[in-house]
């Protein structure tokens, strides 16, 4: 049959890395779902997330002020709090229940309460209190509301202290300095506006690239197994470094196909949303060099367990979100148990996101992310070795079953 002839021809031709390389390309383009997997995820997700978070900062958080005192002082504070950029007083009431209701209805994210005897206490030179009711469940709101209330009350507090000191005979200038012996400044580096996407999006790019590669290569592997398209590789697999040749040829194919695409996506993304790249681009490239091969080798290891092309999606999809959390951007790494952090190193994304963020957002140099880089290279070595072993076992089994007479129609589950 011509099919056998074709196979024989193919068998004689696939002997080198470049042959495997070409073969992989032809497979990639044979099945639509594989192409979709490659492109869709890596392209859509980062842009989607970038768009969703494009409004960056939360300003003018709506709050309510309950004024039980009804004095000029209370109104002063209300005005001052409202004047800050952090909060916006949308409800002024003298009924705490009303404010609470607005809080439960999500109309305000916090409440400031001026108690009934506020003015009296100030006049009598007793310590007065303002109560802040906060919603810590939305972490970003909490920070803003606290700031707004503190700044707002701070004005009055300062005025009182200065007046009092001047009454005691201190000149105004001295009084002002006495009010604040040591002041404190919080400088928020690299992300002064507390933009949300600045740290999340670079992480999502890397993660999307990893997941896409894992799933796509898994699909190709499963697809090959199902349709038994790897038979033409069997002769090569018996060669001395046959397995390594096969794996490297595949790697080159995926790398070339994917890395160019990935770089385009990254550039596009960074320029569309104006993300800064503070480190040197060369450092970025050198750092990410071991990332892609490590993901591809990891995929080879996983592929040996997938018997059909759907299996890769099915078993890998759920890993995206846990991997995101293990990178330490949504939830700080120090809060994650150490044993879990160690396990997280299995995924190239953990180290890659870490270094990528440090270089691009914090301006770190390659030497400052040496540890992460080393881990990535280590993963390369480990996964390649394991992949070779697993694939050798697989090919041996297949070669044996081929040589047996009754090996026709194996139905794959």
């Amino acid at each position, binding site marked *: 049959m011509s099919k056998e002839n074709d196979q024989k021809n193919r068998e004689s031709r696939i002997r080198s890395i470049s042959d495997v390389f070409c073969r992989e390309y032809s497979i990639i383009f044979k099945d639509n779902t594989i192409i979709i997997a490659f492109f869709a995820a890596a392209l859509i997700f980062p842009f989607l997330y970038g768009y*969703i978070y494009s409004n960056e900062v939360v300003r003018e958080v709506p709050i309510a002020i309950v004024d039980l005192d009804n004095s000029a002082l209370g109104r002063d504070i209300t005005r001052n709090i409202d004047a800050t950029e952090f909060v916006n007083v949308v409800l002024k009431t003298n009924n705490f229940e009303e404010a609470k209701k607005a809080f439960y209805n999500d109309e305000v994210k916090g409440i400031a309460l001026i108690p009934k005897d506020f003015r009296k206490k100030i006049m009598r030179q007793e310590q007065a209190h303002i109560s802040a009711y906060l919603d810590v469940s939305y972490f970003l709101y909490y920070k803003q509301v606290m700031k707004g209330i503190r700044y707002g009350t701070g004005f009055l507090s300062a005025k009182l202290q200065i007046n009092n000191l001047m009454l005691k005979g201190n000149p105004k200038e001295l009084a002002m300095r006495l009010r604040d012996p040591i002041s404190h400044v919080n*400088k928020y580096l690299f*992300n002064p506006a507390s933009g949300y996407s600045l740290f999340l999006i670079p992480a999502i790019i890397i993660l999307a690239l990893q997941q896409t590669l894992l799933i796509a290569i898994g699909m190709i592997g499963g697809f090959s197994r199902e349709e038994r398209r790897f038979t033409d590789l069997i002769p090569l697999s018996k060669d001395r470094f046959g397995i390594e040749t096969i794996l490297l040829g595949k790697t080159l194919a995926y790398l070339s196909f994917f890395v160019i695409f990935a770089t385009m996506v990254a550039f596009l993304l960074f320029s569309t949303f104006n993300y800064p790249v503070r480190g040197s681009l060369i450092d970025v490239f050198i750092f990410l060099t071991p990332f892609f091969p490590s993901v591809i080798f990891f995929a080879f290891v996983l592929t040996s367990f997938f018997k059909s092309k759907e299996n890769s999606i099915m078993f890998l999809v759920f890993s995206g979100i846990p991997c995101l959390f293990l990178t330490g951007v949504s939830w700080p790494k120090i*809060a994650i148990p150490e044993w879990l952090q160690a396990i997280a190193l299995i995924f190239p994304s953990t180290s890659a996101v870490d270094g990528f963020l440090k270089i691009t957002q914090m301006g770190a140099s390659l030497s*400052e992310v040496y540890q992460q880089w080393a881990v990535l290279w280590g993963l390369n070595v480990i996964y390649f070795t394991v992949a070779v072993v697993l694939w050798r076992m697989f090919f041996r089994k297949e070669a044996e079953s081929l040589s047996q007479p009754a090996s026709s129609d194996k139905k794959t589950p």
Partner: protein
Amino acid sequence: MNTMKSNTGLQSVIGRELERIKAKPTYMVLAIFLPLLSILLFSAILSEEVPRDIPVTVLDRDHSHLSRKIIRMIDASPSISISKQVSNIEEGHKSIRDGSAYSFIMIPEGLERKVLRHDATEIVSYNNNVYQIPAALVGASMQSIVTTTSIGLKVKYRLSKGETTKEALVHAHPIKVDSHYLFNPYKNYLYYLETALLPVMLQIFILITTIYAFGSELKEKTYDKWQSTASHAFKAYIGKAIPYTVIFSILGIFINIWLFKFQGAPLRGSFFVISVAMIFFVIAYQALGITFVMITKDLGQALNMGAGFAVPVLALAGFTFPGVGIPKPAVILGKFFPFSHYLEISLAQGMRGMDLWYVLPSFGYLLMFCLLPITYSIISNIRSFPKEILDIDSWYVRPRYSYILLFCLLPLAYGIFIKFKM
């Protein structure tokens, strides 16, 4: 008509599905093992309520009694842990870049001297705001430490001028802001995250399992065998879905028990309502999975669709970033995911304690999703599965299903009405 036969029909479909589940371990892995693993994983990741002992570096340029006292206070603070004292600014910034510290605190030269002379002086904290949570925590703690120190100094000064302790305290700190946490007494960001994450993980598995269960019938060409097990296509679908509904509902309610009873997430409303919502949630995602299979008629593509639908849900539901900041079109896009509506119910009953009227629209939306396969097959009558889902002995039964659809549009109408009223 054939009531006896259709009862058996349903049972036999369920029985067949159970056989299929037993035959392939894939189902157990996807439906039970991996979800449980995910729950454990996130419980482990989020096991520490609030990040503590955030590593920081300190530069002490003063080396005075006062500066050392402040450094002791910093180290004693529960949120902060001093990892190293550096000897110059460059070292401090480097520690942030290489990740060994989240913040770098600089105590200036002449601190104590300036304080004694009543000259202005300031302590600066450089916080790495790429990691916002630790940065905010350290920033707030440092602010608190310096403020407390300042107040102490002011009180000392006033005491030295002959004021009484009480007077001194008031004059140094006339207005005190007390914070009360309405919902999370332990400043616990964890409840907030976990309450969203666990259902998100669950829906991934519901989608994948359902798509696999239904799609594999197509792939393995057992579609006809499946359909013939029941007297009616409708019963074939329901019967096939039921085992998974049971499994995932149990898982879902277990998640809620775990969240609200064991993890201590606030539950101010009714647990029953949340549980019912969870069952709706499960069915809604099963319905979506079935619809994807119907649309693509191919297991691989349906899985792609399902994956694409399952993963961005967390962002679109506006949870990790408050809904206030998300652009309007994205908010509307979020409504196309059953998770958003389930989350609404979960928040309303959990953290906010609102009554049932408020969440009825969300139930309506969930119901709409549950009916999606029917809706879809009515709309694309010809392009649905080879055997029409509504293919029945006589067509006069068809109107009955339209009534169900109309009936379920009512909650949606009610929901729209409520939104306009508000």
